[in-house]
């Protein structure tokens, strides 16, 4: 996310002025109410003493970062017209306008969570392509596992628990086929004859 780099050529060990600057900045960052990640996120490329200035508007890398973030957030939001597409995927006008709103909010230093909350406030949770795991939504996440457990239980019940294979012993017993009721008189005669000869 941040693009601060360090130019080691500009860090001679005996440079007292640079050390003093580093100390002041470390103190300023330490005492700052803003999170350090935010300060770093606003930094620009360059020397170590240049981390504090925000990237200027129109900066190519910053624009690319904004585009990436806009696409990432847009991918989590449902297009209100296409329904089955995300805002990032859709080419509908409302989706493009929503991307514009996302981008503007990012430029206003809004976090992705704040931006999602903004759209949820307007459209409801329906706008989220990935419903939050809370309330009735939890069913969506729990149900597949319940179905899997139920399926395992049913399969277990079918094949039988406790080390048996579920195959009845009677089916393992080899016995002479009961053909008495199915043979015709001629076949029975032939069979009887074959038995007596063997």
């Amino acid at each position: 996310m941040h693009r601060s780099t360090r130019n080691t050529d500009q860090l001679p060990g005996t440079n007292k002025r640079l050390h003093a600057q580093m100390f002041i900045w470390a103190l300023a960052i330490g005492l700052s109410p803003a999170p350090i990640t935010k300060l770093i996120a606003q930094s620009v490329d360059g020397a170590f003493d240049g981390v504090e200035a925000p990237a200027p508007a129109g900066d190519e890398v910053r624009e690319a970062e904004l585009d990436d973030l806009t696409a990432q957030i847009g991918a989590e939001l449902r297009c209100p017209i296409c329904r089955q597409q995300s805002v990032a995927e859709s080419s509908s006008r409302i989706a493009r306008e929503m991307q514009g709103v996302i981008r503007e909010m990012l430029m206003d230093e809004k976090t992705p969570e704040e931006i999602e909350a903004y759209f949820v406030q307007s459209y409801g949770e329906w706008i989220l392509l990935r419903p939050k795991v809370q309330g009735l939504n939890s069913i969506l996440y729990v149900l597949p596992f319940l179905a899997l457990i139920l399926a395992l239980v049913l399969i277990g019940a079918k094949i039988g628990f406790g080390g048996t294979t579920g195959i009845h012993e009677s089916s393992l017993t080899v016995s002479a086929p009961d053909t008495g009721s199915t043979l015709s008189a001629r076949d029975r005669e032939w069979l009887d004859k074959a038995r007596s000869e063997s």
Partner: protein
Amino acid sequence: MRWVLPLAFVPMLALLAWGLTRDARRLPSALEGKLAPDFTLADLYDPSDSVSLHDFEGKVVVLNFWASWCIPCITEHPVLVKLHETYDPEDVALLSVLFQDAPENGQAFIQDLGGDWPMVVDPGSHTAIRYGVYGVPETFFIGADREVALRHDLAVNWDLVSTMVDSLVASQGTPKSSAIESQD
């Protein structure tokens, strides 16, 4: 055990049956029962002039999103004209927001079909998105207390409009002007 498997399908079938009774294209508004977001938009005829929701403080507001290319908007337009003519502007304000349309197209539409209530444009659809609009026409009935009573997402008819407006006028209380939610 034989009945377990068929029984497992019962809630699933019930859910599907319930789903078939619903119109998937119609969604409840997330704003109903909440304070209407405030906005300031440029006038349809004079871009240097602007209209805000808080200009109608203490009044029932019928907020209509429309476009000249929208066929149901043509159907509902006479109802809006009648609404504007029937109710006292001191009690009820009608405000139309042009959605995804060029101002000149909107002006031509009004020239053909009439209407002289406040109309504004919404470039970039910022206000429409803030209101969760996903198509036109959409109409929001906002009480004097700034609470969104109803969002209707098809062409309005006179029965609906008069019932809603009468009910909101009758229940007019102390405006919660200090609680108007700011858009910015």
